[in-house]
């Protein structure tokens, strides 16, 4: 290339490089660093995910009204609502995260928190923690899900806004017909077995107890039932399986006995998530492990009266599997956007009497008030919330009384690492004990352990 052409080529390149360096030097920090402090009350716009879709008319109107009220309260903040649903689609969440196109304040399941933190796509909001309303009353176990390392000493990256804990969903009508007290659901696995036998004796295709064994839900319930007996799925360092023991054996032996000795689980197995809700709605199922929101789903989808349904504590009353959701903040958010986002999350999701806890509005719109979820708080906030629920409840809260009273005594345990991969392997174990009268439980647990250890080892590489 001759010298004249070289100069023609180099000059624009130098200008471009200079511009790039200048831009880099002038840009605000991102990728894990908290932005500099915001100028107070400067106009700011934030996009917030998980606005209810238009098909949920009442919820959507509630959100729209809340945004208007919030913007009136904080005139310098503009909320752009994002109603893409589902709010967090596990199949596409990671791809969305990688695209960098998440909302300023984006919705996540509790199980996504670690993944998001390690991806660097969420900003550290530790220094804004004190701005979260009643932060000290939020259950520590829930807040820790959004902390780095899941410990109280880790920096905070998000705010939990909803949770559920598994309990025992049961058919109160069948309890009554079977001569059982519907206000006293079983609280131990032995009582579940006794009550299931009584319910199955009603005949006519009615089964006393149902459980999952396909579509990853079998492994999920095996995990929940391990926790309920005080067991765990993995060791404390999360590096190897920890269920090939007497606790794991008792979970499977119990189910095998219920299925083939007591004959209280019916012949149709390989059930997935919706199957038990359908069976409960059809009045053919006495009990199953589920979350309280199953009650509203059964009522909404199958028009079963609330009076027919109840939720008791997870049998054993030791520990239960907890799930839920929250909001995190995009790594590119400015300080003003983070503070505005915290204010909106507080308003909409964290204040008894406002937003999702506006029980007066929910009752006036015929939405159910009185479900025992979310249950995010302890202390004064929990008491305030309970008072408001009691005032506006329009579903029989007594049907959940045993669940609510047992929860504070129970350990809330989040899912194990690589949960979905482990659950998939757990399906085969559950399916085998529920369909094979000669199932070798010891061998099943051994195989499951080996598979789980492989999953955990692969995840660590």
């Amino acid at each position, binding site marked *: 290339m001759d010298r004249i052409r070289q100069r023609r080529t180099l000059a624009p390149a130098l200008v471009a490089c200079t511009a790039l360096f200048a831009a880099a030097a002038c840009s605000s920090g991102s990728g894990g660093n908290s932005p500099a402090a915001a100028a107070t009350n400067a106009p700011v716009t934030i996009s917030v995910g998980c606005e209810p879709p238009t098909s949920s008319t009442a919820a959507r109107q509630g959100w729209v009204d809340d945004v208007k009220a919030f913007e009136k309260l904080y005139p310098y903040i503009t909320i752009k609502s994002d109603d893409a649903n589902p709010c967090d689609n596990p199949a596409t969440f990671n*791809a969305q995260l*990688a695209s960098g196109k998440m909302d300023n304040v984006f919705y996540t399941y509790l199980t996504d928190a670690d*993944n998001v933190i*390690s991806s660097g796509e969420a900003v550290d909001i530790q220094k804004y923690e004190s701005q979260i309303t009643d932060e000290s009353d939020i259950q520590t176990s829930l807040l820790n899900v959004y902390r780095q390392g899941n410990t109280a000493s880790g920096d905070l990256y998000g705010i939990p806004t909803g949770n559920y804990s598994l309990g025992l969903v049961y058919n109160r009508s069948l309890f009554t017909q079977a001569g059982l007290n519907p206000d006293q659901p079983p609280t131990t696995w032995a009582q579940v077995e006794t009550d299931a036998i009584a319910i199955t004796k009603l005949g006519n295709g009615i089964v006393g107890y149902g459980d999952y064994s396909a579509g990853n839900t079998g492994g999920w319930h095996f995990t929940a039932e391990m926790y309920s007996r005080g067991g765990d799925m993995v060791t404390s360092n999360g590096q190897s399986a920890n269920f090939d023991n007497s606790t794991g054996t008792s979970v499977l032996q119990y189910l095998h006995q219920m299925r083939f000795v007591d004959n209280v689980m019916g012949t*149709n197995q*390989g059930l997935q998530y919706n199957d038990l809700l359908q069976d409960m709605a059809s009045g053919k199922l006495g009990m199953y492990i589920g979350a309280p929101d199953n009650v509203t789903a059964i009522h909404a989808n199958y028009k079963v009266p609330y009076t027919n349904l109840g939720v008791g504590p997870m049998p054993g009353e030791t520990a239960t599997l907890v799930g839920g959701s929250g909001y995190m903040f995009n790594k590119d958010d400015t300080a003003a956007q983070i503070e505005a986002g915290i204010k909106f999350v507080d308003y909409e999701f964290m204040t008894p009497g406002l937003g999702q806890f506006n029980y007066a509005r929910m009752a006036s719109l015929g939405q159910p008030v009185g479900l025992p979820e979310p249950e995010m708080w302890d202390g004064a906030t929990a008491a305030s919330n309970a008072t408001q629920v009691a005032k506006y409840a329009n579903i029989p809260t007594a049907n959940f009384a045993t669940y609510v009273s047992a929860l504070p005594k129970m350990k809330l345990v989040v899912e194990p690492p690589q949960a979905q*991969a482990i659950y*998939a392997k757990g399906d085969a174990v559950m399916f085998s004990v529920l369909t094979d009268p000669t199932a070798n439980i010891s061998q099943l647990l051994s*195989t499951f352990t080996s598979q789980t250890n492989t999953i955990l080892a*692969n995840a660590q590489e």
Partner: protein
Amino acid sequence: MATINVTRARAREVKAAARTRQRVPLGRRVRRHATGYLFMAGAVLCFAVFSWYPMIREVIMSFQYTNFAGNTKWVGLENYRHIFADPGFWAAWRTTGLFTLFALIFGYAVPFITALVLNEMRNARSYFRLLVYLPVMMPTVAAAFLWRWFYRADNTGLFNQILNFLHLPTVQWLQTSHIVSTLCLVLFSTWINMGSGVLIYLAALQSVPGELYEAAELDGAGALKRIWHVTIPQTKLILSLMLMLQIVGTVQLFLEPFVITGGSENTTSVVYLIYQYAFNFNNYGDASALGIMLLLVLMVFGGMYLWLARRVEQD
């Protein structure tokens, strides 16, 4: 000899024409065909974005650890090692192989036999053609959920209700054994897909010259001999094409285990396992590696098929 000389002369002419074309500058050739290239550009762009790029990306991802969020790193053959070490990998191939085998026996033979029967019908052929094609028009997922109810192991499933009505013992369709569960999935797959195959075979059968059948009848051939000596040779091309499409289609089994069994009773197929790796375990590297393996298997099969077809043609 004369034929060979003509062929060689023609080849020389073609080469000379090509050399002439080469002397025309590229720019002039492009300008001459610019309109054609412009029309092609849209299709090429679509293929490039939605077909070739994802394929290339999949090959690359099969050598990476990635879940789209977080760091992506090159791991060489680690993903392939992981999936070979997964017991579910071998089970998935066994399930897929078993399904493909059963589908060949039922899903390949039944539409052809149905077409043969329909072809012989004089009355109500259109009516039965519609009846056979109706399942194809149903939304596949809805139909799969319907058959899930058919196969319920208690007395509320349709098939067990029928067995009850006939005073026969009920069957735990999807819970008895791996073979029975796979057969159940094949039955559904055959039912929902056979309509298209029947119509294609019917069209092929109707192009067979009637004189051949008459000649065979005059020679004393019965129905089965006519099918073996006339129908099958005359429809060989369609039969072999459908065979290849059948195998390629059934190896990519996904919907049936996903909707009907949820992977239970060892019915997880290779494609269902790819889905599990990607969307349940967030491990796109392993999913891509398994996808590449599936591609290679199908390529090997496709290559063998083409080689055999050429051998048969030359013979």
